[in-house]
């Protein structure tokens, strides 16, 4: 019997703090434990409910959860294995955070090729979500800068490069951890002279204005992003603050920094304040968010050129506030992020209009432009506009509103970002990601039995279900003609396996490894009465 690493049962959520589920969390202090946990999951451990990797838990939804199964905490694998300072190639454990990479390599003159709005993500998570940053229009997504990785799959451990197995490499890019557990990776860093950026800031009076400025000017900047006030309406709908910049050379900096190169390269992140408790839901309401938006817009300079900003403030302003996700209260929040093509800017406008209409307070609304996508079949970025909105859960019409926005985005040929998603419907997802089938074929090749499973995967039907041996949900259930009304069954008289498609060709796990039923026959003494 395979004695795998002992996990302990723990409740997990994503960054949005919604939909908690419990799983056996295995702390992978060494790659051996990843191998053992995988072997155990393959042999049907944890009730045959599979395994998924977890990093720092910054996915907003249920991507790094696995209800009733195993979750491997990879943050322990945070070593730097190999460094080539001449070419900026580094090999690191998948659990290392981008923050640690910046702390160690910015003073040496190398910066991460892509950073999202937080430093608190792991390299493994960055690959699994194929994350993007403010430089996507110039540099593409994270996986374009990954030259190799080690992937532990249910059918073996592989060393992957874009050339060795392009299908699997690109299925893993944005594959949300459902193609395997990444244990280490080699990244091509980008050279920087200082830890500062020269930033141009300008206000835009409405959505047309900001889109126009971005379309005409983004090419001149490596980094570009617009913060949108989602509460102003009418003529000022979509008023924004646009910040764009590039890494500063030493000679660009003010004298006090130029004369002190160590200081000009220093990278010491600080958490300024921490949200100590979870306030009641509703703290971030139209009133407070409106006041914040007004303040933010007015505090930003109308037009400012070439101001030196430190990396931490420019890239990760929210990292200065610890546990800021608590501000949304006990019911949590979600982030809605979508992308539509450049010529579908009207969709962006309609989305903002709908939010304004319903007075749905979005504390953070961020607009940017994507450049060409990478070859990943379900990697999120495709060329066009991407808008990200943080929304508190609890508004009565939130469910219908977001379903409507999904329909709008899908019909414009756009898609939502799985790393942020916690509620899209399986049928809409299949419209948004037309290459999902291609991805699933690669996924099934390395994991035919559906061992790699997550709550996100279950919700959206991404891996085959080893418990029922069942097919994935009907791809387009909502649209397909209705099945015969009812199939009356007598469960008592029926064998559990009666529903399985006989001899399904996908190599389902044999029935013997299904949920053990021996334990459950030990019926509790329902008959004995304590009097």
């Amino acid at each position, binding site marked *: 019997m395979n004695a795998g690493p002992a996990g302990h049962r723990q409740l997990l959520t994503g960054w*949005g703090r919604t939909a908690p589920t419990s799983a056996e969390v295995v702390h992978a202090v060494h790659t051996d434990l990843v191998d053992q946990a995988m072997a155990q999951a393959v042999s049907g451990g944890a009730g045959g409910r599979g395994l998924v990797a977890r990093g720092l838990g910054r996915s907003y939804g249920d991507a790094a959860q696995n209800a*009733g199964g195993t979750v491997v905490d990879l943050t322990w694998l945070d070593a730097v294995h190999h460094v080539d300072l001449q070419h900026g190639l580094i090999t690191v454990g998948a659990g290392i955070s981008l923050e640690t990479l910046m702390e160690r390599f910015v003073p040496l003159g190398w910066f991460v090729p892509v950073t999202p709005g937080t430093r608190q993500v792991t390299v493994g998570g960055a690959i699994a979500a194929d994350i993007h940053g403010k430089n996507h229009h110039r540099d593409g997504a994270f996986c374009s800068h990954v030259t190799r990785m080690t992937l532990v799959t249910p059918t073996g451990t592989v060393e992957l490069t874009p050339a060795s197995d392009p299908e699997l490499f690109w299925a893993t890019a944005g594959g949300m951890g459902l193609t395997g557990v990444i244990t280490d990776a080699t990244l091509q860093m980008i050279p920087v002279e200082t830890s500062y950026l020269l930033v141009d800031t300008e206000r835009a009076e409405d959505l047309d204005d900001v889109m126009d400025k971005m379309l005409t000017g983004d090419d001149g900047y490596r980094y570009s992003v617009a913060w949108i006030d989602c509460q102003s309406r009418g003529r000022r709908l979509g008023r924004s603050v646009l910040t764009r910049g590039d890494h500063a050379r030493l000679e660009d900096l003010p004298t006090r920094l130029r004369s002190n190169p160590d200081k000009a390269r220093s990278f010491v992140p600080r958490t300024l304040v921490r949200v100590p408790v979870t306030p009641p839901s509703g703290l971030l309401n139209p009133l407070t968010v409106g006041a914040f938006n007004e303040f933010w817009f007015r505090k930003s300079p109308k037009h400012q050129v070439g101001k030196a900003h430190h990396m931490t403030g420019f890239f990760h302003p929210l990292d200065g506030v610890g546990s800021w996700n608590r501000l949304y209260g006990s019911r949590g929040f979600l982030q809605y992020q979508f992308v539509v093509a450049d010529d579908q800017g009207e969709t962006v406008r309609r989305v903002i209009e709908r939010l304004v209409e319903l007075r749905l307070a979005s504390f953070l609304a961020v607009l940017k432009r994507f450049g060409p996508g990478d070859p990943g079949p379900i990697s999120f970025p495709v060329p066009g506009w991407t808008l990200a909105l943080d929304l508190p859960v609890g508004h009565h019409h939130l469910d219908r509103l977001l379903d409507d926005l999904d329909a709008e985005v899908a019909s414009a040929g756009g898609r939502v970002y799985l790393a942020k998603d*916690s509620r899209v419907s399986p049928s809409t997802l299949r419209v948004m990601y037309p290459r999902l089938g291609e991805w699933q074929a690669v996924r099934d090749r390395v994991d035919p039995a559906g061992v790699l499973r997550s709550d996100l995967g279950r919700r959206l039907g991404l891996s085959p279900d080893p418990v029922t041996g069942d097919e994935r949900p009907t791809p387009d259930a909502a649209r397909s003609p209705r099945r015969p009304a009812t199939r009356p*069954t007598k469960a008592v008289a029926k064998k*559990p396996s009666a529903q399985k498609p006989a001899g399904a060709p996908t190599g389902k796990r044999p029935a013997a490894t299904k949920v053990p039923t021996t334990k459950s026959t030990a019926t509790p003494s329902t008959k004995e009465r304590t009097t």
Partner: protein
Amino acid sequence: MIDAIGRPQSVLVLGGSSEIAQAIVAKLVPTRCRTVILAGRDGPKLLAAAEQAAAVGADTVETVEFDAADIEHHRQVIDRTFDQFGDIDLVIVAAGVLGDQSVDEHDPESAADVLTTNFTGPAAAMLAVADRLRRQGYGRLVVLSSVAGERARKANFIYGSSKSGLDAFAQGLGDSLHGSGASVMIVRPGFVVGRMTEGMDPAPFATTPEAVADAVVKGIESNAAVVYAPPVLRWVFTVMKHLPRVVWRKMPG
């Protein structure tokens, strides 16, 4: 799975022909719920409920033979249902009968039947369900209790005490499940105009299965532990519970 906005994708109803449960299913299916499993005694009422679930758009509708009083088979029925259909996001415990107090009060056996159908049977089934929810690491158990269980009344204390027991049991089970990912929500409706109360005069604050279903769906979304339908009954019964006994005793039938 249950999504961030509290929408389940699959539901099992114990007491599948219950009108309130049908109304809940009718509200869940148009959002995300694709699979509906109705467990109940075979008969036209169960089939009608299944047809209705299919009519509102569920992809998979199944019925399963389940008798709340047949405690011996509860574990088997529950286990087979979970084995066959995989994860179940929401389990609604809706089995129950009103009984006829005027007769039952003098017929210990039929009074005991009411207690078994409303309390002992569902309680045993809930334990089997709770084991499966623990194992799957998530899930919501929705228990249809009643305000009649808040304080047993002269005119219907057999039904009232059965709901009182079920309610207390569900509270304890909810605490026992804390931290497992699974949770319990107790629903305490007032007088519900429908099949169960046919021919009776509606009590004050009478409600409908649809209104109860609305309260339940909202409760699932907000992760509530207890919901009243209509909500005002929470305050009405806070007062009722503390009425002097001489007054309470005179509450009309």
